[in-house]
């Protein structure tokens, strides 16, 4: 199964997420940090790995919706290729960040095992309450057909 035709696939490039806002609460940061195996950071600093889920949820989408957009489901259908995360300053709890972004590239390739694989990248930018750029992420996923 290929899920999406190449035309449908290329049509997703430029897709913009709804955009929105997200406030990282203390409990969420505490649990997330605990999952990494360390103590909470001081002074309301959030653990840097919030840049996985906070941009996705804050921009008004979800992992489920991204899977649906890419036409994939089931175990083994999605893999992480890589991240490029930039921090223009430390991120904090209880700050409302505004986010915007979209899908920036999609490429269909045949992998070494002869399977059809789509490489999808999406980029999201976070702005703080003064509208300064706070962070920017580019995530690259592999969608297996």
């Amino acid at each position, binding site marked *: 199964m290929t899920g999406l035709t190449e035309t449908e696939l290329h049509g997703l490039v430029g897709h913009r997420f709804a955009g929105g806002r997200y406030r990282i609460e203390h409990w969420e940061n505490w649990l997330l940090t605990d*999952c990494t195996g360390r103590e909470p*950071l001081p002074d309301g600093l959030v653990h840097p790995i919030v840049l996985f889920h906070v941009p996705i949820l804050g921009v008004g989408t979800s992992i489920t919706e991204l899977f649906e957009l890419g036409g994939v489901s089931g175990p083994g259908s999605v893999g992480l290729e890589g991240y*490029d995360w930039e921090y223009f300053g430390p991120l904090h709890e209880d700050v409302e960040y505004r986010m915007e972004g979209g899908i920036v590239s999609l490429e269909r390739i045949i992998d070494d095992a002869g399977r059809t694989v789509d490489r999808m990248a999406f980029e999201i930018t976070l702005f703080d309450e003064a509208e300064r750029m706070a962070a920017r992420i580019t995530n690259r996923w592999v969608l297996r057909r």
Partner: protein
Amino acid sequence: MSEPATVHVGDEIPPWTMPSVDPARMRTMAAILRDPYSVHWDREGNAALGLPGRVINQGPLNLGYIVNMLLAWAGPSCVRRLTVSFGRPVLDGDIVTARGRVTAVTDVDGERRATCEVWLERDGEHVVTGTAVVVLVGDQSDD
């Protein structure tokens, strides 16, 4: 251990080890991420992937171990950029160690920054590899 104020190219970052990747933490993480992907909690479902009885750790957690190494070394607000690629999956019960090495020290926007080659290894195999840029502001290690 290097003091960040006196960091030099070639310095090794003190490693950070997760002694056993915990499936309970994967379940909590799945809830926080609102992640429906069953590979993180459905052991039987992973049989089709050739991983019967095992669950796969989230990529952000694998990166989190690398970040914890950086935070312990250079302080709680040190991270400026993370660029990583994911290789092999990390499974519950795995012992993984984050390691890194300084490849450049530069002054940018009034900050002294170190660019570091970083990786996560399991039994000597690199399962995550990449580059981190951190700010050096004296000995601000928090551990």
